[in-house]
């Protein structure tokens, strides 16, 4: 839905800030210093927000150093991996071994009767669903606790960009996890190399049907989405290009015995193809290379990265400058994202709170702000109600951003999630909550400073202080510990209900 107070063009729920862009200075490094507002802004955009001490730490840094610490992130290989993901291939081997030992469902070499097939199917589906739930919680926890938030932020970006969905079409939980790791591995790597590798990723091969494509019957689904949604956008290729790209990608399939990607030469179309004006016996990798030779590919990713990190529906001249940088750096992400996060436009009023928080940003950011160490069922269920179920994007186009995140039902889900979370016992033990002063005016100031970096009006400070002091009841300072705690939790909820908290 378009905002009525803006004059900008509304592109499917994406609204550009008002005012004029100073293009000459936009991408130059920001020469100012950081404060709590700009530090929190950087942490929200390059990650999932910050706990108060994170914000204070970054606010004391030079902008270039702060960005450098996010981009050159420490190794995360020591972080815990998800445990006990259901592996249908291992499960099958286990059943076979049990049968050989005269045990289990197939003891005595019993055949796969309809009843057994049913039982088996039910077990498998249930195990897969449980695995995906565990994987969702694992990822949210990782977003919350990682020392490399930008890595997770990019993994989330790629999950919405190069989408595949769990469970359908034979995509197993292991494959979902492997794809997620691929996104992490390439978080600030090379876009061309990632595009080559995601094309051969088992979950992607199954989700977009390339696994079933062969020379005799090329399936065009992957070839089309590769160009339409992943690299070029509509109107930048022809139907012939789709057919020819599909031929080039034949041969890549998934070995059902191992669950691994495999190139089967006999399935590959070895003939000559004509693609985007070039002719040759192209492979899938060649197709990706030709796509990345198109200036439109850089324009496409520049638009997408600006929408994700800076503001929505960016001006064509800003897109062009970022696209030029992508080409100059041969599609390496790190220098381009680093440039964006250091730029004048990033720290300008145009970009400040210019995006709507996605549910992942909202949920993880709230756990962070409240000092909670782990995402629990409240957060997991809230993600669903807010419309972002990790590993189940709504379709191959990913989650629609911007105003699409904000309907009355989704907003109610956000507010009720916060209301539930402020009542977690651990919130009371958080250092900054425990340190809130007894003076209502000071406490309201601290709450708004910590949770919103002061982004509330004078009237709201007064409202909050008056709530803390209890109209016609005891003032905050006169309350027992228990009642004081309850009122502070209520005030934290009210602070996070304010409009600024929905914005990133």
């Amino acid at each position, binding site marked *: 839905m378009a905002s009525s107070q803006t004059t900008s063009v509304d592109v499917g729920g994406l609204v550009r800030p008002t005012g004029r862009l100073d293009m000459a200075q936009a991408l130059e490094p920001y020469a100012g210093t950081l404060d709590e507002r700009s530090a929190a802004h950087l942490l929200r955009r390059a990650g999932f927000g910050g706990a108060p001490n994170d914000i204070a730490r970054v606010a004391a840094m030079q902008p270039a150093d702060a960005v450098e610490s996010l981009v050159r992130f420490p190794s995360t290989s020591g972080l815990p991996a998800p445990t006990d993901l259901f592996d249908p291939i291992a499960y099958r081997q286990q059943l076979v071994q049990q049968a050989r030992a005269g045990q289990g469902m197939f003891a005595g070499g019993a055949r796969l009767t309809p009843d057994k097939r049913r039982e088996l199917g039910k077990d498998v589906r249930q195990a897969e669903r449980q695995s995906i739930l565990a994987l969702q919680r694992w990822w949210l926890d990782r977003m919350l606790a990682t020392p490399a938030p930008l890595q997770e932020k990019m993994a989330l970006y790629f999950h919405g960009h190069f989408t595949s969905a769990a469970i359908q079409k034979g995509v197993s939980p292991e494959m979902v996890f492997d794809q997620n790791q691929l996104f992490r591995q390439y978080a600030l790597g090379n876009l061309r190399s990632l595009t080559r590798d995601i094309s051969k990723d088992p979950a992607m091969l199954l989700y977009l049907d390339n696994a079933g494509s062969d020379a005799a019957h090329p399936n065009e689904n992957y070839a089309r989405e590769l160009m339409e949604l992943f690299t070029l956008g509509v109107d930048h290729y022809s139907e012939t290009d789709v057919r020819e790209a599909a031929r080039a990608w034949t041969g890549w399939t998934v070995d059902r015995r191992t669950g691994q990607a495999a190139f089967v030469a006999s399935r590959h179309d070895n003939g000559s193809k004509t693609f985007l004006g070039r002719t040759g016996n192209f492979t899938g990798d060649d197709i990706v290379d030709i796509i990345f030779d198109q200036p439109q590919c850089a324009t496409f990713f520049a638009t997408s990265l600006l929408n994700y990190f800076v503001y929505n529906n960016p001006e064509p001249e800003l897109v062009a400058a970022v696209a030029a940088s992508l080409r100059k750096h041969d599609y390496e992400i790190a220098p381009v994202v680093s440039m964006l996060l250091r730029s004048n436009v990033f720290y300008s009023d145009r970009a400040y709170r210019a995006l*709507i928080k996605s549910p992942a940003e909202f949920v993880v950011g709230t756990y962070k702000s409240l000092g909670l160490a782990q995402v629990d069922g409240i957060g997991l269920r809230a993600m669903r109600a807010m419309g972002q179920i990790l590993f189940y994007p709504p379709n191959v186009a990913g989650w629609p951003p911007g105003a699409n995140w904000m309907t009355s039902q989704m907003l109610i889900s956000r507010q009720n999630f916060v209301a539930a979370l402020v009542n977690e016992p651990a919130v009371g033990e958080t250092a900054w909550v425990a340190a809130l002063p007894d003076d209502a005016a000071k406490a309201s100031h601290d709450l708004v400073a910590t949770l919103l970096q002061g982004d509330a009006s004078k009237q709201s400070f007064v409202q909050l202080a008056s709530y803390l002091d209890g109209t016609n009841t005891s003032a905050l300072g006169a309350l027992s510990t228990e009642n004081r705690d309850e009122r502070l939790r209520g005030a934290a909820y009210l602070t996070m209900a304010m409009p600024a908290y929905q914005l990133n």
Partner: protein
Amino acid sequence: MKRGNFLLGAVSGITVVASADHIFAQALAASPLPGLPAGQNRTLVLVNLQGGNDGLNCIVPHGDAQYYRLRPTIGIAQAQVLAIDGQIGFNPAMKSLKDMYDKGSVAIVQGVGYPQPDHSHFRSTEIWQTAAPDKYLHTGWLGRYLDDAGLPKANLFNGVAVSQVLPEVMISETVDVPAIPSERGYGLVSDRNGASRSTYGQVVRDTNLPFASPYLSHVMEIEDHAQRGSEELPKLTAGYKTQATYPATPLGRSLALAAQIVGSNIGTKVIYIQHGSFDTHVSQQATQNRLLGEFSDAMKAFYDDLGAHGNDGSVLTLTFSEFGRRLEENANRGTDHGEASPLFLIGGGVKGGTYGTYPQLGSANMGNLPFTTDFRSVYATVLERWLGRPSTKILAGTYPTLPVLT
């Protein structure tokens, strides 16, 4: 209607009463719908039979030997079928709907589908909801109707989804459709004694903020909708008395709420409801017959209730399902994802009977029945002849309408 004290109450009673009157005035001013004769205040109820309803065991081709040959264990025995004629008839669980059919208030459109069908639940559901088989749209066909209809912006209930999450079909560029799982399930929680309520109402309407954002006005509009909507709905619908006994099923409860919304005259033009799951890969008969029976009985209660309030002529129900199922049963006494299937139009304005062509079972391709009516023809019919809006822009194409409405 009781509201639990966990819900945020009114900002102030005066504010709510005033805005409720305002909504009433707006809703009345907006009726009749543009393009319709005076006095016709119409609502569409869209029921999603989700999971893929098997059309062959729903409207059974009991006159076709091939049906019984390919469905030796799950075919509905000829003697049980509630026959419409010598060829087709209702599933025996659908007695209530068959009675309504006999009275002329049910239309069956046979063989509905779309070209190059997708067999994925997710994608095919999206296709039915966006009415776009060949591209990805983020708005639904009823969302685009709401964009087009010029309904009063002050009314928060121009469209209502009776569901946990807003379905794609109701996603609009300009109209915020509330998703209301139940009357009690739509609301903001408060602190224990409700002390935060009035403060909430103030801080979410904060205007002098020390920053600008292109989304600020949108966020504040939605904050306002969420709070006012959840407070006003029970007040606006409080005077309604249900006049039928609904089955004690989720669908029964959803339809009871729909009848209440209609009967409260709050200007609601489109309501979404879901029922299922019809994904009957295994032991189909027990599951599907139960679901069809629930649907059929709930529809009877719904129209009895509407009728008792004089609203039966102004509410049209349309069903859809993401696909039908294969002609041949599988090894688990179930059926797999197929293609074309029938859908129902029930109630107001319906010219009862069967429409379109039952797909030739002999023409099935790999067990998939080819469609004989494009689903967008059904949508065009509802848009043009019930909701009174031109369909070409909403459906991005011109589709022939069916003579199924009076």
